[in-house]
């Protein structure tokens, strides 16, 4: 008799496909949030596995901070075109112009400003469900979030009042004006993502690989020098061999020194890493509960 065994990646993939199909079956107007980052690249492969040979039952949407690594935007557009799927882009720039989003004095990162932009886009298109690539291993507040995570009419998350979630039975019922955030990769770890990228031979933006970049040292991190993050008069910049581990607003995404030029190199590097992925995000370092606070307001 054949041994009917599955590897952990097979099990995780089967679970994620199931979650995406639940969304397709239970929601009228879902959308998949696609940034061009590594997690959302895996999301697209899982969507292919869940729905091909048909088209995706949802469009893709990117909430563009305008503070981007240009490579990422190029990759985003190319990938959506290859798949032949519809890509919606809504920008923080536009949300600021319309007064939907407001900058607080001294705030340089636009990660927080993605929230009102996203909520406005959800309202504009009457989306009832947004699929996101967040994982529970990323951050403590995320560790307590459901796969089907309910948002009230204000787009808010109430961590103390979440629906119990048992077996693989997801409760997708909502009333008009409310919506659901669904996270098919909830149970994946950073290492799982890279092993999957390796196994599926997924193309990723080249900034994930080692490259020469001009960086400055701030708050114990190497931040990329750009128009948005100019050097201060007393600061010295360095050109180092770096790569990014996670991608956010370019003004607060730390680079790590790394010689990794292949996915296999990255897997080895992460397996041996002593800092978490979000350790390179200045926006999460602000306080113990920075992520919880942003999520409550409606962040991804």
């Amino acid at each position, binding site marked *: 008799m054949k041994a009917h065994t*599955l590897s952990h990646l097979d099990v995780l993939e089967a679970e994620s496909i199931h979650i995406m199909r639940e969304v397709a079956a239970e929601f009228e107007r879902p959308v998949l949030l696609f940034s061009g980052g590594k997690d959302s690249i895996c999301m697209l492969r899982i969507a292919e596995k869940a729905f091909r040979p048909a*088209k995706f039952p949802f469009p893709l949407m990117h909430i563009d901070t305008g503070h981007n690594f240009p490579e990422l935007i190029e990759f985003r557009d190319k990938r959506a075109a290859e798949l032949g799927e519809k890509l919606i882009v809504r920008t923080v720039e536009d949300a600021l112009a319309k007064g939907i989003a407001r900058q607080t004095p001294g705030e340089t990162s636009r990660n927080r400003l993605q929230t009102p932009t996203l909520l406005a886009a959800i309202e504009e298109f009457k989306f009832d469900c947004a699929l996101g690539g967040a994982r529970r291993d990323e951050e403590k507040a995320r560790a307590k979030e459901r796969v089907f995570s309910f948002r009230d009419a204000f787009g808010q998350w109430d961590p103390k009042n979440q629906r119990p979630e*048992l077996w693989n039975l997801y409760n997708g019922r909502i009333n008009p004006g409310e919506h659901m955030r669904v996270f098919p990769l909830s*149970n994946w770890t950073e290492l799982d993502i890279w092993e999957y990228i390796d196994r599926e031979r997924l193309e990723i933006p080249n900034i994930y690989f080692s490259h020469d970049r001009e960086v400055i040292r701030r708050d114990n991190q190497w931040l990329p020098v750009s128009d948005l993050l100019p050097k201060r008069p007393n600061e010295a910049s360095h050109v180092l061999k770096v790569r990014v581990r996670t991608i956010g607003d370019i003004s607060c995404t730390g680079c790590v020194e790394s010689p990794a030029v292949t996915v296999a190199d990255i897997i080895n590097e992460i397996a041996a890493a002593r800092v978490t992925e979000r350790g390179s995000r200045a926006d999460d370092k602000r306080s113990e509960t920075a992520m919880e606070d942003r999520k409550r307001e409606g962040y991804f």
Partner: protein
Amino acid sequence: MENTELLRFTTAGSVDDGKSTLIGRLLYDTKLIMEDQLESLQRSSDITGDGQINLANLTDGLRAEREQGITIDVAYRYFATPKRKFIVADTPGHVQYTRNMVTGASTANLAIILVDARQGVIQQTRRHAYIASLLRIPHLVLCINKMDLVAYSEDIFNRIREDFSSFAAGLAIRDITFIPVSALNGDNIVEKSDAMPWYYGPPLLRHLEDVYIGNDRNLRDARFPVQYVIRPYKDEYHDFRGFAGQIAGGVFRKGDKVTILPSGKTSTITQIHTHDGELDEAFAPQSVTLQLADDIDISRGDMIVKPDNVPYTANEFEAMVCWMHDEPMRKGMKYGIKLGTKSARCMPADILHRVNIDTLEPDVGATSLGLNEIGRIKFKTTVPMVFDPYNRNRATGGFIVVDEATNLTLGAGMILEPKRAIPNTDDAEFVI
């Protein structure tokens, strides 16, 4: 790493039994606590005031939890060793513990129950073991913790083991392991402890790596709940009509004769489609797309099975229910129900008994089921439901009850074997 197995486990214990410390210790000793997490723990050590790094703060993520030093909700943690990947559902031991433990237990292969060596088996231990049994967790580990506080006494360990064994004889747990530990000091967590030379078993982590989980899935009864119908509407796939779903039990092969329930119509599998190509066979828990030879009406909520092994189809059944909402469940009320991919309406037609959570004895004559209470309920549904007894298959025998107005998830149910001719000891709930 790509071929490692996945083990899901849950932890339970009373307040101060050291659950979070135990998980923190597992992560810490397997070097899975990262530098930035350690740094953030050191920053927060002021909160506890003792200057020591509090490993519990690693799992207690929400602000209210850190302020009050408690765990509010089920938290999921991830770690790996070269042998296995682990998903841990850490559930709080105090308020709401039934609701949270049931949630954490629903997907677990294994449950760790912590016992304070100074206190031995207490009421809470029995409740947790009962819930593990009710949810059919195949493997149970009783960690007798704080052994350092009882001078690592073998006698105390043995007494607790015997105590628990005699109680557990009435439960439906296949496999129980006892391990004496000190989570605080790391005794028998990752490395075998020098302080307890009388203990010959493996440390906890080694047990988690080695426990055999190959037959935790049901590979006997072929069950395919239809989740979604794929119709490409493209010229090259003109005739493609695929039934997408995740196999809930057993094995399906190309060419298999199948029955579709509840209609009872039959057909043959012509293709097992995946994006990676056609398969000759597929098994639980794979997500695939089936194509059938005949053009019959099949939609979400139907179940594809094999003609010689069919589940029950009925609009009446009995189930053990755990209620999870402040507003009690009442006889005769109408609720939504979701069982597999089937959503319908249901009504608790009768409350057969309520389990007294302190004595684990049945309480007959109850008319409602309150928050965190467990009871045996007779349900009626508006349409026929296709199901297996939960003890035979968790995926086709478990359901949730939903409020049709607020949409909240109110309770979870586990279907019991209908019309039992002979009492089946393996299946019996603890409360008869």
